């Protein structure tokens, strides 16, 4: 029977634990920061590079490499921003880390700040987590009063404070350059890269590191264990644990911190398999933006060997080899009770609501895709709609300022590619009323 491997969530859900600083200290909290402050910043950056840590926010970019790209010669101040916008549908792991173990986030941030000569750090937290913002604020005050944040941290001579910045309900603020614009007091229109790589031209056009909450928590354990020992957790190129969020049609949805597990181990051993009498049909592996995996397809592993769905290894490379991406690690499970067109309509309605509106293909394309899907759901589908939708969606990703264009292209195209029969059967029919989500779906 597969099991979790809890490192970041080691204490979070235990009865003995609550988020106060004394609890954190009793479990060895802030020892990582003290250890880090005795080392040279560049050595810490090497440690993080050696650990192989990849960012947990979405793209899976090497954290050590990101840090090495920071412009240290410009003479401008360097900023750090912890990304707690957590808005990708299906994702709720940062909420756990912030609510249940806020000092781990703060310790990770202060180590990252010291390692990168950061003068000021921020946490960007979405508006819909008001309690999280209060918990963080309280924890920062506790940490400041004990000398772990603020002036002359642990008498090392290093100073850096943290400010909690609350969002106001816009998904696009999770995209790092949109986030930076938002923090500057502007509309969160993502910036174009190049030239606006945050490591060079970030907040106030100064070098800026944007890291996800979970990425920063991992920094604590890299320092504690050492980069090399950390790199032995997980698979080569996919080091460390990852917190996967499973929602939708499984017996036991929730968050699971795992090392190297297969789909079968996660979805059956940990999540209890499908609901009684149901069959899994499709899995959206990494948040609503990602391509769907059809359960009865054939897949490949990262060595190119043919495998079945159940043997897909749930990490960056395993899911990429299977034809999608692990994104934000928000896994949404669909079964044979779910109308795939409705599922897509729901997701595209999300992106049509959340487009920042800056690029025509994303703004207009999401609107038209939503409308076509809405009429497919309400029985007004036209003969040409499947082809029209497919074509339209293919012209968005890659033609926009930020990667959100793909959040329309990937779902639309993959759902149609994998479940074309359902889309074609729908043309002109009246079987997929929008109401059906509430009609056909279970009550727990």
């Amino acid at each position: 029977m597969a099991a979790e491997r809890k490192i970041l969530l080691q204490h979070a859900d235990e009865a003995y634990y609550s988020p106060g600083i004394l609890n954190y200290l009793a479990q060895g909290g802030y020892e990582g920061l003290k250890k880090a402050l005795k080392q040279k910043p560049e050595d810490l950056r090497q440690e993080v590079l050696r650990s192989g840590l990849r960012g947990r926010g979405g793209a899976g970019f090497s954290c050590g490499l990101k840090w090495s790209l920071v412009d240290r010669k410009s003479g401008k101040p360097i900023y750090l921003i912890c990304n707690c916008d957590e808005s990708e549908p299906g994702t709720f792991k940062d909420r756990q880390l912030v609510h249940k173990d806020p000092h781990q986030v703060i310790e990770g941030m202060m180590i990252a700040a010291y390692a990168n000569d950061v003068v000021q750090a921020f946490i960007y937290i979405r508006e819909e987590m008001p309690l999280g913002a209060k918990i963080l604020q309280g924890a920062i005050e506790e940490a400041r009063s004990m000398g772990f944040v603020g002036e002359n941290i642990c008498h090392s001579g290093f100073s850096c404070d943290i400010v909690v910045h609350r969002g106001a309900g816009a998904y696009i603020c999770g995209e790092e350059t949109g986030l930076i614009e938002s923090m500057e007091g502007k509309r969160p229109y993502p910036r174009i890269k190049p030239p606006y790589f945050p490591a060079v031209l970030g907040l106030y056009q100064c070098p800026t590191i944007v890291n996800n909450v979970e990425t920063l928590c991992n920094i604590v354990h890299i320092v504690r264990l050492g980069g090399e020992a950390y790199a032995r957790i997980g698979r080569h190129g996919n080091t460390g644990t990852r917190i996967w969020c499973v929602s939708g049609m499984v017996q036991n949805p929730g968050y699971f911190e795992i090392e190297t597990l297969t789909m079968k181990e996660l979805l059956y051993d940990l999540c209890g398999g499908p609901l009684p009498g149901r069959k899994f049909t499709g899995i959206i592996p990494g948040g609503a933006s990602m391509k769907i995996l059809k359960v009865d397809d054939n897949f490949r592993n990262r060595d190119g060997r043919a495998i079945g769905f159940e043997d897909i290894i749930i990490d960056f490379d395993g899911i990429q080899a299977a034809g999608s991406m692990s994104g934000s690690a928000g896994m949404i499970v669909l079964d044979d009770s779910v109308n795939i067109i409705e599922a897509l309509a729901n997701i595209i309605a999300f992106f049509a609501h959340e487009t920042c509106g800056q690029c025509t293909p994303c703004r207009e394309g999401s609107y038209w895709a939503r409308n076509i899907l809405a009429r497919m759901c309400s029985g007004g589908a036209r003969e040409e709609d499947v082809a029209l939708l497919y074509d339209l969606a293919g012209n968005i990703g890659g033609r926009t300022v930020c990667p959100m264009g793909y959040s329309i292209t990937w779902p639309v195209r993959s759902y149609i590619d994998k479940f074309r029969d359902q889309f074609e059967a729908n043309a002109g029919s009246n079987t997929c009323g929008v109401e059906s989500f509430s009609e056909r779906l279970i009550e727990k």
Partner: protein
Amino acid sequence: MRPVRSIGEASMKLSPNTLQGIETAIANYPRKQSAVMTLLHLIQEERGFLSDEAIEWVADKLEIQPIKVLELVTFYPHYRREKLGKTHVRLCRTLPCALMGAYRVGDRLEAALNCKMGQSKGDGTLTLEYAECLAACATGPVALVDEDLYENLNLPGSLQTLVDTVRDRSAEGASAL
């Protein structure tokens, strides 16, 4: 909006607490314009919405054009030009919650609270809305009632607790008026 006045003219009476929060927020940032979202949050918390006067006041305070503030207010869903109900209910409608019956919960809430989705009650006690993913998808359907998260709303008991809370808060609101 009324004609824009020149910088330095807007005036507004805010509570000492809010004013204190505003000064702290401004001091928190390397550039004061970064405090604009926090100022809007604080004023909306006190007033329930953001008036022309509030927008001009914030613009004055941060030395930016009022349009730069207005364009944030119109962009971010959280900022409101009209007063929200005393209690604000936001029910998540995104896929994982929808799979667990969010739309059906929405219908029941409309009936139980006698308020349509996307609307505020005439007596100012309640605003009921759908929201996008609230980052609590495994315990869906979920709703935020002001600052509190209600989970597993497809369980009849949980839904009833939410409805009772809303009614209690609305009653408090009515008696305080």
